[in-house]
């Protein structure tokens, strides 16, 4: 089915990459969505945030979101729609690609079934007419919970980041509690790309150092700049005289 080994390796790598991208997207968006919107407000500012948007903010974004959703639940139409402009570049689309139209129909069907089934199940939950009691989140019976007792964004991503240590440079500003009775401690971390930290930055630094040696030339002194101009003119005249 797959013609040669290069194609096979490409297949394997691309499919693994596809899966990795998908799972990283899950990790990234669950983190972003939950830290920003869910749980207790994580800072004073977050507690006092007020909505000051108008309809003109929300409608355009909703339209774009709707289109994204449509690509997801009606992919067969979007795919057929895209085949025309793509065929301008690639020539006639061969049968292999068209083989996946039924899959997309199934995807579309599945999406609708999921939405319908969830709606039904949701309705059934209310039909069950069980009492729903409201209480605070399980905090082990502690009577003074604070909003800091929630997971933070960096902690959420931390196991994954630990796996990818060779790809990032962690810049950590940490003061650990070391003594038996610590006085204070803090932690701050941000990530830098490896290329930026180990290649670009040193390169840029050395270039800067080299050019710093010429700082004296640019000292903001108007008289000196006029001198440069005069010197250049003199040199130019001399050259013209000698060569011309």
């Amino acid at each position, binding site marked *: 089915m797959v013609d040669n080994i290069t194609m096979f390796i490409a297949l394997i790598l691309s*499919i693994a990459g596809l899966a990795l991208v998908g799972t990283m997207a899950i990790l990234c968006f*669950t983190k972003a*969505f939950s830290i920003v919107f869910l749980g207790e407000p994580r800072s004073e500012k977050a507690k006092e945030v007020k909505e000051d948007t108008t309809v003109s903010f929300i409608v355009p974004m909703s339209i774009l979101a709707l289109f994204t959703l449509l690509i997801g639940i009606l992919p067969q139409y979007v795919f057929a729609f895209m085949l025309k402009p793509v065929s301008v570049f690639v020539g006639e689309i061969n049968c292999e690609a068209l083989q996946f139209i039924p899959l997309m129909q199934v995807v579309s069907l599945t999406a609708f*079934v999921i939405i319908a089934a969830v709606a039904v199940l949701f309705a059934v939950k209310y039909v069950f007419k*069980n009492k729903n009691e409201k*209480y605070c989140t399980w905090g082990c019976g502690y009577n003074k919970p604070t909003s800091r007792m929630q997971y933070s964004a960096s902690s*959420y991503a931390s196991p994954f980041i630990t796996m990818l240590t060779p790809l990032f440079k962690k810049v950590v500003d940490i003061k650990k509690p070391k003594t038996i009775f610590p006085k204070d401690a803090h932690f701050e971390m941000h990530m830098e790309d490896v290329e930026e930290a180990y290649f670009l930055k040193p390169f840029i630094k050395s270039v800067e150092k080299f050019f710093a040696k010429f700082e004296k030339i640019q000292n903001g002194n108007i008289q000196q700049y006029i001198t440069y101009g005069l010197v250049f003119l003199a040199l130019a005249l001399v050259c013209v005289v000698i060569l011309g």
Partner: protein
Amino acid sequence: MDNNLMLTLFNILILLLAPFFVIGIIKKTKAFWSGRKGVSIFQPLFDTIRLFKKDRTISTTTSWVFNFAPAVVFVTTLLAGLFVPMINCYSIINVAGAFIIFSYILGLGKFFALISAMDTGSSFEGMGASREASFTTIVEPAFFIILASLVALSGNYTFASLADVIKSNGTFGILIVILAVVSLFVMLLTECSRVPVDDPTTHLELTMIHEVMILDNSGIDLALITWANGIKMVILMALIANLIIPLGIGFGLSVGLFLLTLVLLAVIIGTLESGIARLRMSHVFEFVFVMSSFALVVASLAAVKMYGI
């Protein structure tokens, strides 16, 4: 088509009922190794029925996500199960590229489970969610690699590529099947939170992965989620069964072997849980990486078989 109708009914029955009995068998095995009689294998079924009748307690910190998620988790898991073949390579929905849509439907369920856990604003649940999300990044690519290799090997884009690997590929087939089965078993241990990845009987919230994400769910929500987790276990066991059981044997024998595989896998999980300790969290990541490495070996073996290096 009587045969197809029977197969469809069998698939649905296994999907809905087998989870309870598989968990019951695991518990019985653990009890056996502890020298106890253990609870009856019907107990998980009774527990779920009891949960359906209970009231719910909803945390004031949560939003619509928390209310919504259990339904999504259950529906997506059940739907993903419809794509999985059980006997005679028959799955209720049969389409090319099935393993991709199968994974992504489960991924949708997982997404909602994760945000539902973060919605409660509890650091325990956040801890469980972060661990769960990180394991997924290792497990999914490995799963895709295995299935892509099998697809390339058999030329069949559906889950039917899992069948008859041994018949068509001789010695390579045996090696590939062994490695793929071990990989899928590690995936089962990770996705369903069994030892050595997680201890399902522990009461210590700080060490849990899956159980702690559902700490605040109760009543019908909890029933749906536990049922869905059981269905996921049966689905993964069915994938392993498809690799082992050959095609072309009669209906009765296929059913028998399939059920035997489920029971055997449950007994193996129970024995493993009684005999080894749960690994330290940092070592669990290394353990799950076993799956990735085996997946790459499966891919190389498939390449060798196809292109004869």
